[in-house]
């Protein structure tokens, strides 16, 4: 993940994850190394995350790319690569 702007994107990403989540977590403790799966997302709920990311960041993401990500930091990088 690119440090420039990464922190700002991470903060917005945390909100997206929280609003799409079924499980409750300490969202402030979510860091780039946090695994998406550990936050309770599965193959269905990650689709909501994808949808909400596109809404929040105004980008178009390939579902395949999102499914390939394992950590929060990888999503931040993906968002940056797609112009967020």
């Amino acid at each position, binding site marked *: 993940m690119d440090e420039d702007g990464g922190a700002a994107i991470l903060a917005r990403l945390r909100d997206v994850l929280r609003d799409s989540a079924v*499980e409750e977590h300490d969202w402030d403790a979510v860091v780039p190394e946090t695994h998406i799966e550990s936050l309770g997302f599965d193959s269905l*709920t990650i689709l909501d995350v994808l949808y909400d990311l596109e809404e929040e960041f105004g980008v178009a993401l390939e579902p395949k790319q999102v499914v390939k990500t394992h950590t929060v930091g990888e999503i931040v990088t993906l968002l940056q690569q797609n112009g967020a």
Partner: protein
Amino acid sequence: MARRVAVTGLGVACAIGADIESFWTNLIAGRGAIGQLQSLDTSALKVGIGAEVDAELVRAGLKRLRRRPTDRAVDLGLVAAADALEEAGLIDGAPPYEAQPVAVILGTGAGSAESHTTGHARFHERGVRGLRPSTVPRCMYNSISAGISIHFKLTGINYVVVSACTSATNAIGMACRMVRDGYADTVLCGGADGFFDPFYFGIWNNLGVMSKNPDPARACRPFDADRDGTVFGEGAGMLVVESWERARGRGARIRGEVVGYGESSDASHLTSPSAEGQAVAMRDALASAGARPDELGAVNAHGTATRANDECESESIRAVLGDAVEAAPVSANKSYFGHTLGASGAIEAIAALLSIEYGVLPPNLNLENPDPECRVRLVGAEPEPLERPLVMKNSFGFGGSNGVLVLGPGNRG
């Protein structure tokens, strides 16, 4: 031989309590909780009152389960289910849980109403683009039973029964039959409904069955001559039922028994009840319980406080109980926590089971001027002793569905 059906866990989330102890304490103290609706803008509506569950209690209940809110009916169901499962000794605190073969059979009237309304609003605002991918699973009526099955890892069959205000009673009846006939050993059953949203509350507003009494505390008046309609509530009620042998064998505390269940359809009108149809279900339930009318200690009525229901229900109770009608006082719990639609049968069955356990019937609120047309013996403004520990619980729904349970104590023979 048919197996007996033990109740080993109870859970509730309604306006007068999100735990069994608060629920019973408020019932017996005559403390209702109908008020001005806080979660909904009712300025354009004829009716602005209802019985809401304390939002903080729901939040705390979900937090204990490490869940975020998803849909009001699902959330209420989860909170009540956790208490029932925990009391039955099937779970211990927060997740993760071990998978176990428990079925989940739940009633609901409006289903995942909040998700429907949210989805429709987004669709009207932005078209198909506004619909989140999870709209389908969130809007499924069985999202309530599925959500509970998945969260608690209950691997028996899960489904919902949708029969308007009879839903939860039908669900408990189905669960009872499953256990009786050996199709399941343990079932989580009951119901959940949460529909204080602009669409669902709006359609009830326009049907004209709700009380227009501006005083929330006095608005819901079952069997009172001055009743002018029902008052709605949100909530969930959950029971763990299992075979008597299994409960005994594992040393579970048996809190009561589902002794019998009966059902029928009026097959006459979508919204007008039929005393004949109701009587068929009551007789069916008594036959299923192997009980005579004079063995009943009380009737827990459907008692919606509409003109039509209470008069019709009084007639059907009289027809079935005959000479025993004066010896079976009638309770109407909706005066406390409103009409919770598809959850009402479960929440009120829990009230009936607690009445049996403690040997006392809660007072009927707002019964200041009993309707002379309702010729049944009504519990008054004070609690009264339950003389015989067998209670008939009625539920009747739009669509002409009738469901009746006969409930007994946990220490019967």
